[in-house]
């Protein structure tokens, strides 16, 4: 059956979840373990409450006459209602704890539960950020210890700990570079970045007032050195380069890139999103970089949590190590100090409230201590091994974008789907019915119909073999040219099928509103 857009609404065979056998739909709308769940706003009743709070003392109000009049409009639910609501919602999500999550560039690795436990310890999870220094010596020591691991692993002399995520780390790195340039009286205007860069790179450069000049790639997926040379000039502040790059390849000319950018007095910013491929194995400091952010929520396993929080410390070279954000931790004979005001005259100022993502620091340090130097090296090796294994196991039925070996990500283009009527998106959606989260699709932009697979070191060979069987099977099914309709309709076995994104953007509904408001708006 086709819907209005001409899309198949039911699969050809065997994948119909529209109702139990015999053609009956369920009476109440739920389907076995899968529950339809209204919004909390549609379940509330005034007078119901999920907490018990004592009556407040009777005091003379001191709100300056600004007590709120009228109701806010929040729904009232009991605790069991709230728990059931969020448990039911949770079951509509895919997660790394359920299966392979090969989302390229995102490093969806196992999130150890020990780390969750430790982040909640009394004396860490409940510390107030404005406690006197004398009462938080252990917390400052923890930040310093994590900083030590990051410096050792990268071979860099300094690290700024406060950035809240990868993009925030990029901002930190560029602000550091800008401060260093201004300090030598040489503010510059241009940032070079490969066409394959993460969108955060150009967006960050723009926030710092730089224009972005794209560098093309060579046929083998690396920075084109000749093109780079042609773009160099005295107004270039820095190059932003991801290494391993977004095509999953190591920039083998990285030292030449560093020499070239340094030769014109510019700085080398490395996007460290893909550090997982080389952690414990290669020190970026040995390759000539000046700044690199590290996504603790990628390489060091702090949970992605459905989109954050993250943490993005930035390691800095000797040339940049004084140009740091506030605050930072130092220690001397009297113990640890949190430096909140610029003492050197070189800091570029504050980037966020308080001192950094402490909850993520605790988790990341626990992860590092658990692995040790030996285990972290093995992380990189197993991550790279897994990606190459996927590539080698699929290269006859899928189309690797570049010749291997790859690093921790296997990148395919869509030429294996040519003339099948199946797009990269269709292929990805069909993976969902097979019990997998799709790989990253249509990124990097430099590869047509890109499919970027990052299996990570967390997967056993057995898990990879099953995943490979499915990747191959779907590729072969597409190539049979008999199944285009099936792919166009996928996914089928999910709480919601393909969603109408055009409608969402054309008539944005971004919040619940009480019924009478909706009516008023319609009139």
């Amino acid at each position: 059956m086709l819907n209005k857009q001409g899309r198949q609404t039911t699969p050809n065979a065997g994948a119909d979840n529209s109702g139990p056998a015999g053609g009956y739909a369920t009476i109440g709308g739920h389907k076995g373990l899968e529950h339809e769940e209204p919004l909390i706003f549609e379940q509330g009743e005034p007078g119901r409450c999920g907490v018990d709070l004592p009556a407040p003392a009777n005091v003379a109000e001191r709100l300056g006459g600004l007590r709120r009049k009228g109701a806010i409009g929040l729904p009232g639910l009991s605790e069991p209602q709230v728990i059931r609501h969020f448990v039911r919602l949770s079951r509509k999500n895919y997660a790394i704890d359920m299966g392979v999550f090969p989302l390229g560039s995102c490093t969806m690795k196992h999130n150890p539960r020990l780390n969750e436990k430790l982040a909640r310890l009394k004396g860490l999870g409940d510390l107030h950020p404005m406690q006197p220094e004398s009462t938080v010596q252990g917390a400052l020591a923890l930040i310093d210890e994590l900083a030590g691991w990051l410096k050792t692993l990268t071979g860099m002399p300094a690290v700024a700990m406060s950035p809240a995520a990868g993009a925030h780390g990029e901002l930190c790195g560029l602000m550091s570079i800008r401060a260093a340039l201004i300090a030598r009286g040489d503010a510059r205007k241009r940032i070079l970045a490969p066409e394959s860069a993460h969108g955060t790179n150009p967006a960050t450069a723009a926030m710092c007032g730089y224009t972005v000049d794209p560098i093309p790639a060579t046929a083998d997926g690396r920075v084109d050195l000749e093109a780079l040379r042609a773009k160099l000039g005295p107004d270039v502040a820095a190059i932003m380069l991801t290494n391993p790059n977004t095509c999953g390849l190591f920039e083998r000319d990285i030292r030449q890139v560093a020499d070239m950018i340094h030769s014109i007095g510019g700085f080398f910013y490395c996007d460290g999103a893909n550090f997982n491929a080389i952690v414990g194995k290669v020190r970026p400091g040995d390759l000539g970089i000046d700044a690199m952010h590290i996504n603790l929520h990628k390489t060091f396993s702090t949970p992605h949590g459905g989109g954050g929080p993250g943490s993005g410390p930035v390691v800095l070279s000797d040339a940049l190590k004084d140009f740091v954000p506030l605050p930072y931790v130092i220690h001397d004979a009297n113990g640890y100090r949190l430096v909140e005001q610029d003492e050197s005259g070189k800091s570029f100022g504050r980037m966020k409230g308080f001192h950094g993502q402490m909850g993520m620091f605790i988790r990341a340090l626990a992860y590092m201590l658990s692995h040790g130097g030996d285990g972290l090296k093995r992380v990189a090796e197993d991550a790279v091994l897994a990606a190459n294994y996927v590539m080698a196991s699929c290269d006859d039925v899928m189309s690797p974008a570049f010749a291997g070996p790859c690093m921790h990500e296997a990148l395919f283009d869509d030429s294996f789907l040519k003339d099948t009527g199946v797009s990269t998106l269709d292929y990805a959606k069909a993976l969902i019915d097979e019990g997998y989260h799709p790989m990253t699709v249509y990124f990097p932009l430099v590869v047509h119909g890109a499919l970027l697979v990052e299996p990570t070191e967390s997967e056993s060979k057995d898990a990879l073999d099953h995943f490979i069987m499915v990747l191959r099977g779907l590729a072969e099914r597409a190539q049979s040219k008999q199944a285009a309709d099936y792919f166009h309709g996928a996914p089928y076995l999910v709480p919601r099928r393909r969603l109408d994104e055009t409608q969402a953007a054309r008539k944005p509904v971004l919040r619940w509103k009480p019924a009478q408001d909706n009516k008023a708006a319609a009139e």
Partner: protein
Amino acid sequence: MRYLGQTAADRQAMLAKIGVADIDALFKDVPADALNAAIELPDHRGELEVERHIGALAARNLSPADAPCFLGAGAYRHHIPAAADHLIQRSEFLTSYTPYQPEIAQGTLQYLFEFQSQVALITGMDVANASLYDGATACGEAVLMAQRATRRQKAVLSGGLHPHYRGVVETLMRQTDQPYLAAPMDAEGNEDLAALIDEQTACVVVQNPSLFGHVRDLRPLAKACQAKGVLLIVAVSEVVSLGLITPPGEMGADIVVAEGQSLGVPLSFGGPYVGLFAAKEKFLRQMPGRLCGETVDQDGKRGFVLTLSAREQHIRREKATSNICTNSGLCALAFTIHLSLLGEAGFTRLAEINHAKAVELAGKLDGLKGIKLVNGSFFNEFTLALPKPAAGVVEALAKKGILGGVPASRLWPGEKAAEHLLLVSATEMNTEHDMSALRSALEEVL
């Protein structure tokens, strides 16, 4: 190594399939002298050893659970319902990614829609985004947004704005040499910001309650802003105050930013927290960050997706409204669960309790040994003028096992007028005993 799944035999089989002899063959693009650098770090450890190591660090800190705690200044100690912390640890929430594949992320998307709805309701605004890093960075983004929306540059920053928020704005403005006018410290709560507006002004940023605790009627300021086409940005660093105080939206705010930590998010020494960002609908397409919207699926069922992404970095690159990618998803979930548990009645009552505790505490301390309450109005935090420099008093209190407040001099260093000022907060966590302990300790150290 308990987190790694390959056996030696697996690795050999995989290398054979790839067709290389050893693992280093896969790293052949790395300059040879940089590969397998000697990295001096300890070897791997078991759970027990790691737990001991980090437990020992925790033990070197004074936990607010063991000390009467009156610290606020942008981060507040509140009770987190057991259900909230349990639910955010469910695998399907904790270990999922940004909802790029909406068919298998409806759980995350629906709670983000609920989060946006709650934030819009409590701030009194039309729309809210799916979170930013924290209150301070949300404040910085709000100023950048006001510049885009007004095509003017100058930001006027209140002297009652949290210096961390102010610092973030200043850092961002300096990157592009934008002008800003930072008003002098306003401990008394009587600055006249309208007088600072001129033709170049894009926005006025004011905090309510202010850093020093004053609750202000922002309507006259909103009117003055509106008359000159200036956007009023209101920052709220204690979100529980919105349970009791007239919301900024009702007072004429164009953009509201807030720190959401107080609902569901542990103090955790300053992060991760959750930045709330709400605005009038007409500024929708200038907003930073992710937005979750309602739509239908192929079968006509209601569902949710990330939307209006043409504003964002992964589509718009250097023309994006912000560079933000990862936000504060799990903290937003904690916020949403806590506020769902509270509901209208619970949120109001929690705010009432906080206010009552603060009124009670202010009454106990005002007049004690030369202490003067600075505020006429406040919510759950107020400013005391002490007869001595506050930093030393706080240290002396800490030695007695009391976390007695935040010295204003820590936030306004070098500002003479800040030296004797102490910010004191009270929440539902503070007992009668805590308050008496603070009172008697102050009697001793002053």
